[in-house]
């Protein structure tokens, strides 16, 4: 690659890097990728249009996974008291067996927790030929006999969709028979174009089959939900600690450290907060339409972002006592954060990062890097949609293609019994004028105006390698599949899907953890040893040096 980072520190023009990347592709591929790679610049008024949530090009080594992974692994993975049965051959169940560092904290040592178990119908060829319904029915019965759970969920894998097992009918039948909630997800891996379809299917079914089942509101004056928080590396534990300290009641988290009962009474909250916009923004909309709960976007990644989010929640409730308490908590927590930040700043300022993660993380983590004086040179989502990049204003313009049309959309209307508008239209407008914006997300690119940067959707291994060669960032953030090819290049790589061995990174304590972790990585000695001393020095002539 001719465009390489200059010794002076000047960075190559992202447009040039883009054209070098595209040069290797067959023409048809290059045309498509050209629309998925855009560049931001300080003078841009509105973000450029990016093509996102479209099919991955066959043969190109994508970072993406599948619908089943999004449904079973991401959304239902962190919920501890539902027996999740994968209906299919053994592989899908095996690979989604706690491989995402889901953490949970049961109330007592005896409380239900099935997260360390993997349940599968382990379909054999005769089940493919003659159908797997009988086996699924028996598996649900056996799970019930062994564990007596309060709910059982069934996840369809690719062949189940093809052979046409009616997982929903069997679930209804078993629900009737066993007297517990049994529901299913048609989350076959081939649906949609990425994990995103799976999030959608998971959320819709939880909304349909669980939310609203229990009208008991937990005690507390300020009740909220946390949507799109998955307790990676214990993030939810830190957020829960902060909310409790502020006197805010967390009714439900979707779905980090969550339980079935939490989902069932989610509708009793008075405010919904959305962390990962991609995975769950539509649930926030549905909760508003059906139950009258407004939603705001929050971000607990980054100390400043955390403080801002807490203040925004307090502002919504318009309660002096709460507003003061939140200020006290922030004042109490910030000194430790500042001290940790001051300690690492001399070693992190001016360093550079790249982030290619999930559906909001490539955005959220830029806050933390900014706090450390680090610049993001390139970023993108693994399964984001245009609104995650460009902001919600583009939602009406997004064309729905065939792959998205296959994902069920549910229509909701106000619940006759349970709908209760939490704020009047006038109140909402006033709050908006005071800076509490509802149903709003500006997207990743709005926050990447500071410097020319490449924003890339559905990055692949070849492009990652080219980016690293061109920019030599000080750190690269992505997932496990990308980790070691980046590290072979001598660049530290931090996983932000599962945090490697670290975390939590949310909230104030999390920010401190992250500062320390990134300091460790960008200043690690190990990568300096990639070349042996004799590889760095010119060849010696064939005589002994002491001669």
């Amino acid at each position, binding site marked *: 690659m001719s465009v390489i980072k200059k010794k002076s520190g000047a960075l190559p023009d992202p447009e040039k890097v883009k054209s070098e990347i595209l040069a290797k592709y067959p023409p048809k591929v290059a045309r498509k990728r050209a629309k998925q790679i855009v560049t931001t610049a300080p003078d841009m008024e509105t973000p450029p249009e990016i093509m996102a949530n479209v099919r991955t090009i066959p043969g*190109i*080594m994508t970072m*993406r996974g599948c619908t089943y992974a999004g449904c079973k692994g991401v959304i239902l993975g962190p919920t501890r008291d539902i027996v999740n049965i994968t209906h299919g051959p053994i592989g899908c169940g095996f690979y989604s067996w706690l491989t995402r560092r889901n953490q949970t904290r049961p109330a007592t040592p005896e409380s239900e927790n099935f997260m360390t178990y993997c349940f599968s119908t*382990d379909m054999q060829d005769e089940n493919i030929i003659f159908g797997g319904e009988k086996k699924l029915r028996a598996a649900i019965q056996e799970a019930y006999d062994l564990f007596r759970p309060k709910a059982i969920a069934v996840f369809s894998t690719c062949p189940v969709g093809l052979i046409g097992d009616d997982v929903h009918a069997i679930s209804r039948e078993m629900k009737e028979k066993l007297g517990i909630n049994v529901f299913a997800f048609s989350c076959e891996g*081939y649906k949609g174009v990425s994990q995103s379809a799976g999030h959608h299917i998971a959320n819709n079914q939880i909304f349909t089959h669980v939310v609203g089942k229990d009208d008991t509101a937990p005690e507390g004056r300020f009740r909220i939900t946390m949507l799109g928080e998955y307790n990676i590396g214990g993030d939810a534990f830190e957020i829960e600690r902060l909310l409790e300290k502020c006197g805010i009641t967390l009714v439900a988290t979707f779905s980090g450290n969550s339980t079935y009962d939490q989902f069932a009474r989610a509708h009793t909250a008075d405010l919904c907060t959305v962390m990962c916009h991609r995975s769950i923004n539509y649930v926030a909309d549905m909760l508003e339409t059906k139950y009258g709960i407004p939603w705001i976007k929050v971000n607990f990644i980054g100390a400043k972002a955390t403080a801002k989010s807490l203040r925004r929640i307090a502002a919504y409730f318009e309660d002096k006592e709460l507003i003061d308490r939140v200020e006290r908590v922030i004042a109490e927590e910030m000194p430790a954060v500042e001290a940790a930040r001051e300690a690492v700043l001399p070693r992190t300022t001016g360093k550079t990062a790249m982030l290619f993660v999930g559906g909001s993380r490539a955005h959220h983590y830029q806050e933390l890097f900014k706090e450390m004086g680090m610049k993001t040179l390139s970023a993108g989502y693994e399964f984001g949609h245009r609104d995650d990049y460009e902001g919600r204003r583009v939602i009406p313009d997004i064309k729905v293609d065939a792959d998205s049309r296959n994902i069920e959309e549910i229509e909701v209307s106000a619940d006759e019994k349970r709908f209760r508008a939490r704020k009047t239209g006038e109140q909402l407008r006033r709050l908006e004028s005071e800076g509490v914006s509802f149903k709003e997300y500006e997207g990743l690119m709005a926050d990447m105006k500071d410097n020319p940067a490449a924003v890339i959707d559905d990055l692949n291994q070849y492009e990652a390698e080219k980016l690293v060669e061109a920019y030599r960032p000080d750190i690269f953030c992505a997932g496990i599949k990308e980790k070691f090819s980046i590290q072979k290049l001598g660049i530290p790589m931090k996983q932000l899907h599962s945090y490697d061995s670290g975390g939590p990174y949310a909230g104030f304590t999390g920010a401190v953890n992250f500062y320390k972790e990134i300091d460790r990585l960008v200043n690690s000695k190990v990568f300096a040893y990639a070349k042996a001393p004799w590889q760095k020095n010119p060849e010696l002539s064939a005589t002994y040096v002491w001669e």
Partner: protein
Amino acid sequence: MLLRHTKPDVMERTALTINPAKTCQPIGAMYAAFGIRGCMPHSHGSQGCCAYHRSALTRHYKEPVSATTSSFTEGSSVFGGQANLLSAIENIFTIYNPDVIAVHTTCLSETIGDDIPQIADKAAKEGKVPSGKHIIHCNTPSYVGSHVTGFAGMVKAMVHYFAQSTGKRNGSVNIIPGWVEPSDMEEIKRLAGLMGIKSTLFPDTSGVLNGPLTGEYRMFPDAGTPVSALQAAGDAVGTLALGEWASAEAARLLDSKCKVPCKVLDLPIGLAATDRFIDTLRTVAGTTVPDSVEFERGQLVDVISDYHQWLYGKKVALVGDPDQLIALTEFLVSLDMQPIHIVSGTPGKRFEARIKEITESLGRPVNVRCGANADMFLLHQWMLNEPVDLIIGNTYCKYMARDLDVPLVRHGFPILDRPGHQYFPTVGYKGAMRLLEKILSALLDRKDRDDPEETFELVI
């Protein structure tokens, strides 16, 4: 408390697998394909399969695992995956330029019935396969067999697509190492080298999935079995297939296709199995066993005799792959240990019979089961009914080990939380010594932890 819901009453299950002791065929095919030099494994199905397999292998090896996928969406599932595979082939050769694309199917493409050889032919006719490049394939529906049989399938494909007989023997011995670690493949080559034997090992993942960090990334390192060596396998004097499950089919195909005689042996794990391996090598190649190999053997026997008192009568639970478990069980029995609960998710009738045979000298019943429902939940229940002193199995055993407070020696696939397996072998005499060291350390660490202070011993 991690597996708090597992109770000792064993209920016969017909439908529900809990904590499986196997995974699906394609991942085995993918692993085997890395043992060919310059090979890109390709997963023909939804992209989730490829993502999961790459993630699992990456977590096990801590290495880049580059593999491509046909990225099926709903349309491909209805109309077939031909268009996806054709464009994948074109893109792979253009962008990554491998020597070989090794295609394996998934449950999706199998259920649709995609015909891979037909699609590969079409790609060649359309000029999408550059000259000198190859596409091979194997069928790996996930609802048949396990990761082990998937591995076997791809090894068989290597013979099917590449092995040729020129009618002239080349004096080389083929060794099919089975599903073992890159470090084990390296050790098998070293032993054959010590014996002065010209050998071709396939597949050979050493140097591919345990590579160095150099500041450069090479998707296709100079390692793995070259296509030319796979072609020449048809002219070898004989084939040693290590492991009935992972290697025998390929060896038998080579025998029928190219008339290369084969012997199927157990994996050379432990003393007796390594003895048989060395002895067979000696006979096949018509050579003598060098002193250096006998020296290593003697060292192993020495360590066993030095530490026998800590091994004698200790009860062990085992979970893993059949070829691995057969050799491991035999090793444990030879140490006078008692392997009493053994499960393998991989099906195969001969497994239970072999284990019964090997454990006969224990003079007591042994719990053994394989195939569907032979899972770690069952193993855990057996352990609740008759406790053991040691568990040997993959990383997932750590839940049981913690709950039951029993030491664990990690062995098998996958190992997600400890280093070593990529770099230090467990095959051969040296490997047996390492395995023995791990077993003894686990047992003695536990003893040091549990002994009352008055009997806490400095000298063991």
